């Protein structure tokens, strides 16, 4: 049995709950044992690091300290979110590379009765342990419903294969782990050179024009290559490409409809789980048509009640489009 300490991260029970549900559905077929870190806190995403250094790393290190304290018969922490993975892995690495940082962080941790000796734990991403510990052979054996005929582009995102101080990935810019895993599920994997290009991260919140440009590059390229869906390993990537695709379409005057699912959702389907068990249906860009290609029927859910725009009535602020300058639109 493969046993790990799980650091879920904040998005796993909210925006990326489909990721958590589908992860739960594959632990049994793959004989994985995930033990959640008790009372873990937010890793600070990419925000805290840009304000204060020592508090940011202390926030991250509290999780490492809790995990190390909890360690029973494993010293490997698994994070399904790329940003969480990077923060935990980077903190562990920098505390060793720069001993003064390690000492200060430990001084802060001591105020809460904790300590962490950098290097004690192995921090790894979920897909890393699935491909390299569980192994593609075991995954292939668990497949009962191969995804033959489903055309997918593997989207690894940026924070997973880079900066990769621990040398875990096959390549920094064109890693093949996700391609290999999806092929093991029987999917028709399309080569996707943008696989580690950025989705915009927090730019959807602070500089939407910049984010829309990055999302547009990814979605239009996947579409041109004939993909029926994108497959991701990161809650942030899923959120940006799924939830902001509509706004991006308005901005560019395009009409893309590119669903993006978590790789664990496709694993669940290939292992014979029902769509509802793997969180399918909560994505905003529906994957129903794409999944119909492999004979998976997604039940039609009640569409959310959206206030309809009336033909007559008071004029409302218009949607923001590329043709309106940024300055006029925001002010």
């Amino acid at each position, binding site marked *: 049995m493969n046993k790990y300490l799980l650091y879920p991260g904040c998005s796993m029970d909210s925006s990326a709950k489909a990721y958590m549900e589908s992860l739960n559905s594959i632990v049994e077929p793959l004989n994985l044992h995930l033990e959640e870190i008790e009372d873990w806190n937010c890793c600070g995403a990419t925000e805290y690091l840009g304000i204060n250094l020592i508090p940011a790393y202390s926030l991250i290190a509290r999780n490492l300290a809790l995990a190390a304290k909890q360690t029973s018969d494993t010293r490997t922490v698994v994070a399904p979110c790329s940003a969480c993975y990077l923060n935990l892995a980077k903190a562990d690495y920098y505390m060793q590379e720069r001993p003064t940082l390690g000492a200060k962080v430990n001084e*802060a941790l001591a105020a809460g009765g904790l300590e962490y000796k950098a290097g004690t734990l192995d921090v790894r991403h979920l897909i890393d342990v699935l491909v390299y510990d569980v192994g593609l052979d075991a995954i292939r054996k668990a497949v009962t419903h191969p995804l033959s005929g489903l055309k997918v582009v593997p989207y690894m995102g940026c924070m997973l294969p880079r900066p990769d101080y621990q040398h875990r990935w096959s390549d920094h810019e064109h890693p093949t782990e996700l391609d290999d895993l999806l092929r093991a599920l029987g999917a028709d994997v399309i080569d996707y050179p943008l696989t580690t290009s950025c989705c915009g991260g927090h730019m959807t919140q602070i500089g939407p024009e910049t984010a829309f440009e990055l999302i547009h590059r990814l979605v239009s390229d996947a579409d041109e290559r004939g993909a029926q869906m994108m497959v991701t390993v990161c809650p942030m990537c899923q959120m940006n490409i799924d939830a902001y695709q509509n*706004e991006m379409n308005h901005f560019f005057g395009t009409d893309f409809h590119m669903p993006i699912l978590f790789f664990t959702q496709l694993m669940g389907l290939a292992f014979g789980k029902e769509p509802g068990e793997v969180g399918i249906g909560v994505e*905003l860009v529906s994957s129903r048509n794409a999944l119909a290609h492999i004979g998976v029927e997604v039940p039609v859910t009640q569409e959310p009640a959206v206030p309809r725009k009336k033909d007559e009535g008071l004029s409302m602020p218009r949607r923001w489009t590329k043709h309106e300058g940024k300055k006029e639109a*925001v002010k």
Partner: protein
Amino acid sequence: MPQMTDERVRAGMTREEDLSLLHEVSMKTAGVSHLEMCIQCGTCGGSCPVAADMDHTPRMLFAMLRAGMREEVLRSNTPWLCVSCYHCVVRCPQEVHIADVMYTLKGMAIHAKLYTDSTAPHFSQTFVGMVETFGRGYELGLATRHYLRHFPLRLPGMMPMGFGMISKGRMAITPKKIKHMDQLHAILNRAKELELTS
């Protein structure tokens, strides 16, 4: 600091070389930044997916740091546009921790109140405020506060998305809180004191 030689004065150099800003940024950066090792090759700017929107490419910014242009550097939008994709980091021949230097510059710009556009600093501060209150992220609270403050006109167009996220259970109405908030507060308060004395 090197003494100014007669030759340098004759060459028209009227100011002392001052690397203190470069060293300050380097020391404030997590890990070993290698910032001083930059050879101005420009691989960073050429690898950057958002360089087109930046006031200065990373290469240019690092040259400005070396030249001691504190205010210009801290007013630059470059660190705020960095999406932390680490493309430049893995390509840099000198192994400069470029993304981490950008984090350092953001922090310095916030402390010096020298940023030009407040959208990004406010977002970071609101996010951190949520984390310091609950120990976890709180998307609905963050989004509501941030959009009302910075993108009120974007809100109507985003209603379908917001409704979708909530009705599909992807955005919790109430925040989740960790059990040992007191412990986290103690750690963060001590960490802030340590930051000041560094």
